[in-house]
């Protein structure tokens, strides 16, 4: 059975709430190496902004939402080849001991995922107050790259600096990492904050994100998946496509739609409304990416 058939079945089952082809991924040059391994269709899952440790009225079920999402991922008709968490694994705390306890609890919960290839990255709630120290103890480096079936993945850390900077050191690393790639190589960037100025008045930006985008611009096939804003959002900067993910704790209002970025109220008649995660299907070594949005709990 082809992956697209699984998607059709999921849609019939009520789990798929959105699916579309994405801009930003075009055909690569014939015969050019992309990312150094075997091409082929695959899909992965993006979860984001789980905020383990949050307690508040925006999600009275905070203690079980993540576990339900793990169960839903485990029940997918076909297992993803890997899973990514794009930051804010935990809700921030001033207490270093409590921060480590939350990170450890989060790690223990997601250990129940049946798919064992899981990639993590921090959000500002995990890493900004100690510049990533506790995060690194549990999950390792905050920025890295890997290849999967012809697609080059780059995890960019724009949160360990509390000022939302990627920083010169990481930008130099990014420049070096990109230098070995063909300009037609499919590239997927995973990060927490938007790399572009989505809503600076709400601190929805990366201070030096434009420098990262400038490095990525020469590449024809770049797609960015991020979190931070607790909602699905799609935007192009030039030919680069940016797609933010829903949260697994509470939803936030549309960018600039109200004076402040306060969480949307919990709807007891529709628990987990506005929350969810997504599947991303890469076909033909990144020639096309498709997103399917899924609810926390399958209908």
């Amino acid at each position, binding site marked *: 059975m082809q992956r697209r058939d699984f998607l059709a079945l999921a849609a019939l089952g009520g789990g798929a709430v959105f699916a579309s082809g994405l801009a930003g991924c075009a055909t690569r040059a014939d015969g050019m190496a992309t990312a150094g391994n075997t091409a082929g269709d695959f899909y992965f899952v993006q979860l984001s902004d789980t905020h383990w440790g949050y307690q508040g009225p925006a999600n009275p079920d905070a203690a079980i939402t993540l576990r339900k999402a793990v169960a839903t991922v485990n029940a997918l008709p076909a297992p993803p080849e890997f899973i990514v968490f794009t930051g804010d694994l935990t*809700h*921030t*705390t*001033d207490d270093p001991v409590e921060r480590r306890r939350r990170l450890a609890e989060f790690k223990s919960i997601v250990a129940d995922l049946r798919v064992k290839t899981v990639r993590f990255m921090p959000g*500002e709630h995990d890493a*900004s*107050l100690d510049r990533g120290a506790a995060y690194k103890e549990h999950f390792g480096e905050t920025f890295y790259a890997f290849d999967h079936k012809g697609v080059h993945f780059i995890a960019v850390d724009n*949160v360990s600096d*509390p*000022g*939302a900077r990627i920083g010169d050191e990481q930008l130099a690393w990014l420049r070096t990492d990109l230098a070995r790639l063909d300009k037609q190589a499919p590239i997927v960037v995973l990060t927490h904050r938007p790399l572009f*100025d989505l809503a*600076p*008045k*709400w*601190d929805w*930006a990366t*201070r030096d994100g434009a420098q990262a985008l400038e490095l990525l611009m020469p590449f024809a096939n770049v797609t960015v998946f991020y979190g931070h804003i607790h909602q699905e959002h799609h935007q192009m900067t030039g030919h680069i496509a940016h797609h933010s993910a829903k949260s697994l704790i509470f939803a936030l209002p*549309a*960018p*600039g*739609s109200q004076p*402040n*970025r*306060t969480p949307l109220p919990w709807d007891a008649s529709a628990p987990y409304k506005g929350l969810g995660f997504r599947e991303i299907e890469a076909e033909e070594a990144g020639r096309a990416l498709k997103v399917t949005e899924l609810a926390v709990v399958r209908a």
Partner: protein
Amino acid sequence: MRTEDASRRRVLKGVLAVAGAAVFERSGMAQSVAGPRTIEMTARRFAYEPNEIALRAGERVVITIRSLDFVHGMNIPDLGMRLDLVPGRVTRLELQPKAPGTIDFVCDNFCGDGHEQMHGRFVVSA
């Protein structure tokens, strides 16, 4: 809503020119400045005090800002400027708004559980 927001930004840029905006950082206490009205502000987790400042169009003011507990940020996107508010220093922000309107500012250095509520605005009247 995005269209409305974009329209609002265009209006802001059209009516709120800031002449002579300048930022200085000095160690020690704020120095009195002849001429412009001086307004004192503090920043602490997770609020500016005051967080709403009334200004008059055409008036030159100097905002002297002291951070009490953290290197808070003060990002003023409509003016294309931002500041780091370092504890132990007085950060000076000179403004001269030209026309009525509202200028928002926000902390853009993540400062903890409550950072998302740390914001304020200048309200400029005719």
